């Protein structure tokens, strides 16, 4: 029932592509395993469709100001003249407001929708980046150095993985806010930016451990292989062994883990925002809009369905793409 990082690495453990040194696998076709995987991915229709959808969402997020300008609306401007005394919008979608306006405030739905794509993607990509960098570094160090370094890092990994992640994410919010002086003293902008960074921090903090464990296991078996022993024997410095010899052989688990983390983080961001512990006004986010829209869903379903479709489509595309990436790197998991 948990939602988020702890699940993202399920099934990543088996990937023969990475167990073989890069050179050995390339003999047959003269291609690297990554190239072979990319070729497989390009032939996978589901993967291509999902990739196109993901790219579309990224474009929407990047060009959100342009799209809003095209419509001629601003995402934060109030239009109280467009809602009645009970806060209900007086009009549906029009030429001026393509997706109608928000109840109560009368803000433009289309502008808020395109801007809403931004925090989801920024949070997910940043957290994936941090989680991957930390996870790979920790895994490499633990696996390669062994001894007490390995024992300490492995203990930390077990520790992080055994914490109830969702509860910690929620508990971090009031703590960090009170570090900055308590929510009473924070302006809405300050509170929103605090929440934004807390989200990225929490997601990366709980996201690195799973990958680190996998990388450690891989390194443990790789470091005994001839090409690593040879490199060490001719006196290649440790850093170079780690990054030039070992890292290229770890591409598969890293790519798989990252591509499975992205949908999990988008889900987590929107979910926490929906619960009221993620992003807050004035940052527009889909999760928040869903929470508000549940009060209006009978009379104004469009308001609810816009963010619901946004999140569902984005997460579905990312998740299926992640699954296809795993299949491409490891044909054994293919159904």
């Amino acid at each position, binding site marked *: 029932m948990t939602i988020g990082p702890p699940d993202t690495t399920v099934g990543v453990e088996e990937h023969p592509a990475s167990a073989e040194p890069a050179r050995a696998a390339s003999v047959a076709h003269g291609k690297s395993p990554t190239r072979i995987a990319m070729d497989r991915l390009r032939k996978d229709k589901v993967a291509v469709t999902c990739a196109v959808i993901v790219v579309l969402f990224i474009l929407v997020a990047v060009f959100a100001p342009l799209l809003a300008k095209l419509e001629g609306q601003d995402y934060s401007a109030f239009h109280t003249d467009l809602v009645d005394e009970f806060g209900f919008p007086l009009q549906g979608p029009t030429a001026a407001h393509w997706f109608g306006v928000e109840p109560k405030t009368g803000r433009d739905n289309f502008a808020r929708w395109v801007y809403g794509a931004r925090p989801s993607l920024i949070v997910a990509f940043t957290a994936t980046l941090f989680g991957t960098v930390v996870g790979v570094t920790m895994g490499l160090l633990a696996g390669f150095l062994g001894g007490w370094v390995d024992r300490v890092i492995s203990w930390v990994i077990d520790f992080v993985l055994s914490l109830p992640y969702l509860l910690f994410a929620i508990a971090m919010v009031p703590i960090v806010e009170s*570090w900055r002086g308590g929510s009473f003293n924070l302006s809405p902008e300050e509170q929103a930016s605090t929440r934004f960074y807390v989200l990225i921090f929490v997601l990366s903090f709980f996201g690195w451990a799973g990958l680190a464990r996998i990388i450690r296991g891989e390194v443990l078996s790789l470091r005994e292989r001839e090409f690593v022993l040879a490199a060490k024997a001719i006196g290649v410095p440790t850093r170079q062994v780690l990054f030039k010899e070992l890292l290229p052989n770890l591409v598969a688990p890293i790519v798989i883990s990252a591509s499975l983390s992205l949908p999990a983080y988008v889900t987590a961001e929107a979910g926490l925002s929906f619960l009221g512990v993620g992003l807050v006004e004035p940052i527009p986010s889909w999760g928040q809009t869903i929470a508000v829209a549940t009060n209006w869903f009978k009379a104004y379903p469009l308001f609810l369905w816009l963010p619901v479709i946004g999140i569902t489509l984005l997460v579905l595309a990312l998740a299926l793409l992640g699954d296809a990436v795993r299949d491409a790197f490891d044909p054994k998991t293919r159904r």
Partner: protein
Amino acid sequence: MIYFVARRLISALSVVLVTLIATFALFFIAPTDPAGAICGERNCTQQRYNEIKQNLHLDKPKVQQFAEYTAGIFAGRDFTTSGVTRHCGAPCLGFSFKNDRPVTEMLTSRIPVTVSLVAGYAVLVLTIGVLVGSLAAKRRGTMGDRVLMSSTLVISSVPYYIVALMISLYLTVLYPILPRGGWTPPSENIGKWAAGLVTPWLVLGIYFCTSYARYSRGSMVETLSEDFIRTARAKGLSDRKVTYKHALRAGLIPVITIFGLDVAASLAGAIFTERIFDLPGLGVLVLDSLNSYDLPVIMGTVLVASVVVVTMNFLVDIAYSLVDPRVRLS
């Protein structure tokens, strides 16, 4: 075996201890201001602020505060507020800042809700998941298998709370096909209790059985290709007996392991279900405490949840090592 259990036990205890220290540090040593939070923003005089600080022992050294908090968990402790002493019984997690009730009491009043939810979920998810998974494994490669497996992939790729929210809004509120979620203690009216939980159970069960179906399919496919299955077939056992008596038993072991960990995690992860279906469980308690900066309640819940998860991890490890002795060597 004893060595293995001892090692796992020490590691589990060390995790609990560090969680205790870490949460305490986060909540009370970091520059948070509990006294200010209780006192409120308006009409908080310096005198009242100091009084609160004294009552909560927030003016004492941090190490002493931590020692008192830890001692309170095992032996209980006394709080003195303006001359009146109150005793806080053995697993003492302090008093709520908001309504002054003991945190332990607040938690225990919420636990039946979350446990009812998770118990129903556990039964459904395991039976449906394993059934679907082993059916698919038996018909591996057929059209039915492919349809089942792709649909589980698609279902589990949609965020859970979206599915739960839409079902709650459209199937229990707008078109009341399913009973609305809600909480009635089973001691009061068992029919009402079940009615309020049946929709969340179904939603949880159907959504999360997808991952169980995939685990058990994978595990069963592997087991069905093993030698002892071939032997069973060769000695003329019926297909049903081979699948459900021989293969399922061996194939279920990894699934049960995941199940144990998942049930523990669910106790803490039921927040979305509780919020969407109006169930006043532990998760909702945390969310409600959040707005009032009720740190003792949040800290208590986090601690209890961590202990539950660590204990389950430990038990699963031990159980697994009993079933599969190879684990002990690693």
